[in-house]
């Protein structure tokens, strides 16, 4: 349950970007959340909705894109995608997969309103 702490960091980035862009309002925020990032999207949404009150993003909608796990086998080199955590290669069964995607926690983009 460290979602509130993550949302605090998210707002630091969001508010800095909004200032750079001279935005009047942030109306939508898109995050990419890896399947193995240790974050629960529902809790992130609750934390976001609590935190946004009184900020430039007070009416913003949060969109969470889940990034599936992308792994590469260190033995045979096979790459595969998975929705659930996997620990062995689907092709040669070797353990110790290199995780290429699925751990990220990225503020991908946001929708802003500004004066013409």
């Amino acid at each position, binding site marked *: 349950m460290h979602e509130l*702490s993550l949302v605090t*960091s998210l707002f630091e980035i969001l508010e800095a*970007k909004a200032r750079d862009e001279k935005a009047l309002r942030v109306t939508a925020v898109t995050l990419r959340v890896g399947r193995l990032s240790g974050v629960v999207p529902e809790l992130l949404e609750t934390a976001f909705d609590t935190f946004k009150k009184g900020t430039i993003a007070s009416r913003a909608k949060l969109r969470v894109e889940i990034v599936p796990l992308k792994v590469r086998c260190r033995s045979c080199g096979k790459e595969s995608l998975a929705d659930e955590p996997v*620990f062995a290669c689907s092709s040669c069964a070797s*353990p110790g997969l290199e995780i290429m995607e699925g751990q990220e926690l990225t*503020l991908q983009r946001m929708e*802003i309103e*500004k004066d013409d």
Partner: protein
Amino acid sequence: MEKREVLVLKDILGTNKKIAAGIREKLRTKGILSVNLMSSPGSGKTTLLESLAERFQGRFRMAVIEGDIETERDAERIRAKGIPAWQITTGGACHLEAKMVGKVLAEVPADLDFLFIENVGNLVCPASYDLGESLRFVLLSSPEGDDKPKKYPAAFLSSNVLVLTKADLIPHLPFDPAQARREALEINPRLDIFEVSALTGQGMDGIAAFLISALKKLRSGYA
């Protein structure tokens, strides 16, 4: 009014990672090996440190940063062994962050060999936060059960060392250390694994030797 979409592409943990990298570099320059200890509450992190303090006494200098939600209790236990300790009370937060460690670091003496950072007892959230450590230890005590690695993969995936603690209780429990090892190694084959009882001293020399060797590697620039 113009409405448009802007790309940001920023890592939400980016600030924490940056602070952690600074801490790691600072400690490395001073030749201090830092270890982040993670586990559930009650797995034996503080007891492991007390036992190491006894083994290192008069040979190596160690200090401890304790993370807890409330109370100075753990820091007091460490100080009772003659080891300098700083308590970070997070007041509710379930993990330590690099900036919390950074604040305490200014008070930590520079002439140390080992700096242990005992994280808040929690097998989930601490895994996401780099504290600038050289090594990450995850502890799993026998009463917790041998099925935990796959239930909490991030902690095992991000660690260098697994310490199976409370080994003296294994004869009384349905805990299979071989099964715990197997699961953990399936997640992370590069884990070094130790089975210890801080109470009886079983396996403690092995951990102490591992830490001393890691310290030598750090100082010779290979870590």
